[in-house]
């Protein structure tokens, strides 16, 4: 252990004194304050904070990722290229200890820098409102919608497979499949039918009511906090002013349905909102029943003169405060750290058999692919009609083997003040670090232990 630690401290020294880390540190120290001053978002205080935290964390994450790749690759390849490795591996240290030592050094450096910069971002995010003129409304808004960690509940998808099957059989029997879905495969037709039925379950006809029920709603302090219904309207016929009226009931609606008395309040909200834009309704968290039951009802008033739909992916969700902003922010930083740990493993692996430029290129390719995995998967999804099989067993398989950084990006949680749950943390830690990272690191140890370190000189 002492030997590994010697290697680790030497790696940190190398990163700092060879000015590799210095460049990134200075860059961040300059850019973060600039961001604080320039970030404006949509002009509101909340928008400003969101922009700053989003850009600040993304920038930190990106630069630290690059730093991790460069330092981990450089610390090994430079030792081999400049042959300091000759005097190091001939000392009583196993080769795997050397790699683990360097890995430790990179991680310690990462943790230190991440703590520093996440601390700066957090500090700025908390201090900004003090130096900006804020109205009490602004203050309440950011307290409720930014300085918090809200858990999100999404209505479960309704199982519509039976209806799809039935309709498909009917169309087939009537020989109308070709007419309804020209040039489509059975799989695609079923997909479209499923979508249609699901949307149907989330639509409210003119004058009709749609109710969603949620269980296990557990706000941390029901009497003090608010609960948010976040929604986005879609319509079959867009009104001239692009506005839709809605009549909402939020609370324990079992009382209304069954005629039994309930001891929690039921809120009634009538409002007018633009279509295809996210809006939030705030109600006190005390509307949640003691057993964690909550229902959200929407009535489509007749004067709307259009069917109102809530898109399947993000049409409606219920948000409530589940944890503090700080705790959520720390978990967000943890997500970044996991990414850095994986990249350090990857750098070690690449450097164990490639030279500096090769290893850097390799790591960057993996990093970019991982960071844009969902985009790549999506774009290939469109092509899959023609290159389906080839694609499925090659590129898609590879992308699934890589860690999908974009799905564990903390800004997508922190900006809308979503709770980063420990479940998510655990899942990412297990998948990205314990599984993929460990495999890559072990690969590095094996390759490095068996390769020849000296150059061929005759």
């Amino acid at each position: 252990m002492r030997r590994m630690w010697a290697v680790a401290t030497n790696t940190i020294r190398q990163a700092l004194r060879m000015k590799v880390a210095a460049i990134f540190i200075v860059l961040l120290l300059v850019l973060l304050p600039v961001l604080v001053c320039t970030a404006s978002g949509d002009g509101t205080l909340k928008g400003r904070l969101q922009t700053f935290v989003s850009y600040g964390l993304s920038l930190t994450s990106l630069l630290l990722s690059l730093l991790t790749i460069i330092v981990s690759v450089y610390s090994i390849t430079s030792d081999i290229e400049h042959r300091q490795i000759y005097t190091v591996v001939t000392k009583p240290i196993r080769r795997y200890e050397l790699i683990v030592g360097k890995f430790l050094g990179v991680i310690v450096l990462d943790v230190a820098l991440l703590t520093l910069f996440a601390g700066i971002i957090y500090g700025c995010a908390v201090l900004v409102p003090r130096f900006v003129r804020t109205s009490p409304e602004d203050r309440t808004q950011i307290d409720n919608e930014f300085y918090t960690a809200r858990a999100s509940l999404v209505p479960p998808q309704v199982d519509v497979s039976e209806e799809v099957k039935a309709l498909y059989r009917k169309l087939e029997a009537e020989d109308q499949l070709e007419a309804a879905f020209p040039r489509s495969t059975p799989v695609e037709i079923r997909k479209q039918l499923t979508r249609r039925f699901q949307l149907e379950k989330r639509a409210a006809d003119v004058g009709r009511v749609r109710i969603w029920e949620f269980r296990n709603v557990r706000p941390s302090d029901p009497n003090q906090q608010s609960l948010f219904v976040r929604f986005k309207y879609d319509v079959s016929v867009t009104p001239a002013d692009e506005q839709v009226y809605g009549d909402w009931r939020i609370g324990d609606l079992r009382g209304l349905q069954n005629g039994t008395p309930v001891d929690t309040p039921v809120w009634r909200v009538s409002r007018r909102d633009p279509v295809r834009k996210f809006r939030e309704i705030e109600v006190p968290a005390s509307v949640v029943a003691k057993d964690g039951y909550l229902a959200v009802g929407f009535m489509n008033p007749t004067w709307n003169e259009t069917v109102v739909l809530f898109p399947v992916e993000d049409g409606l969700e219920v948000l409530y405060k589940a944890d503090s902003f700080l705790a959520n922010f720390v978990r967000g930083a943890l997500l970044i750290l996991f990414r850095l740990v994986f990249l350090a493993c990857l750098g070690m692996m690449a450097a164990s058999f490639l030279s500096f430029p090769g290893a850097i290129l390799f790591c960057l390719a993996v990093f970019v692919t991982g960071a844009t995995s969902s985009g790549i998967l999506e774009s290939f999804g469109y092509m899959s009609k023609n290159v389906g099989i080839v694609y499925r067993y090659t590129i898609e398989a590879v992308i699934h083997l890589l860690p999908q950084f974009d799905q564990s990006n903390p800004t997508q949680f922190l900006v809308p003040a979503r709770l980063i749950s420990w479940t998510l943390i655990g899942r990412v830690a297990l998948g990205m670090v314990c599984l993929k990272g460990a495999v890559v690191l072990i690969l590095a140890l094996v390759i490095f232990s068996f390769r020849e370190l000296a150059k061929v000189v005759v």
Partner: protein
Amino acid sequence: MDYAIETVALTKVFSDWWGRAKVYAVDDLNLQIRPNEVFGLLGPNGSGKTTTIKMLLGLLHPTKGHSLILGGDGTHPKISARVGFLPEESYLYRFLNARETLDFYGRLFGLDSKTREMRTEALLEMVGLKAVASRPVGTYSKGMARRIGLAQALINDPDLLILDEPTTGLDPIGTRQIKDLIIKLAERGKTVLLCSHLLADVEDVCDRIAILYGGKVRAHGRVKDLLQRTNKRQILTDSLSDATAERIRELLRQEHAECEISSPMERLETFFINTVTEAQQHATPTSGAVSTTQIGEFLTVGARQGDILDELVAAPVSETAQTGPVQTDKPAPREAVTPEPDKDLLSKLTQPASSPTVEAVTPDRKPSGDVPETPLQPERVKKSVLDELTGRRQSDGSTVQPSEDRAEDGGHA
């Protein structure tokens, strides 16, 4: 017998991209280096010396055969803890300073901080880099880097020292110092594998040598056996009157032998060292390495670890101490000669010398042939390093003691 280093049919073939054998860097090498021996591995550039060392230390995998270091695998931590290695160039971390460098290597050996600190200071003192110890190693000249490389190889007080071209880039004083160090270490029971193509270095310190060419051993054996010219004799005397010289000539003529009588030249090395030492006495400032003549005391202690601490505490010698006695050794011809020929020596001179053990090819005898036997000096074993510096050591070619049969250039006849 347990060898310090043993290679069995060690072969390294460098193949091209298609796996076809291209070059036999080392070809079926069988070396046996005994403990407490200074072994020289000679050869022109590209003869396989460095490749052999790299295979010994596990930096390259042998194509065939295997090697043992101190009776075990050279890559095993237990073995490498007892080995000191100086590669063909000092590959150092440029961003560390000398003190941090030594500390880092000390930590790789798992030494505790007290030992590390003491040894680091002792070694810095020894290699003369104490004054510049807080400068990054990247700013060092080649010779200074070489010195710190050497210090690095000694931090663990190794039993076996593998030195690949230790004197390249060093000034004559440094060279001399390394040679003295090697001799001292050998006296203390350590084994040294010296790899070089600087013949003078090897000749001065090695007990046995092997000459490599094309990855094969072309000649090996004891240095004096290989170099002795059995058909020549050299007599070294005090200043001689012309009349006596003429009488000797006459005597020799009766034996049908020719001889040449002249005053011996001082060796340039001796002259250079004396000049620099003198300058140091006048405290001429230098930005480079300071040359000291002391040797890290912990290295020269015969006993192991336990005593080292005590020794280190007691050891440090002040830098001024070394400069004192230098003047006593004047850059004058070596005078310590027995006026009357030693009986033993004469009888030996008349005996036919044993022929050198030579393999394969005729050994590369020194063309100038200036290393014949010279009279034995009475008080040579326990002399100070300074005496050695001035070149008093001479070859006698008679004893088996490792400290004594190291042939040194005895000067010209």
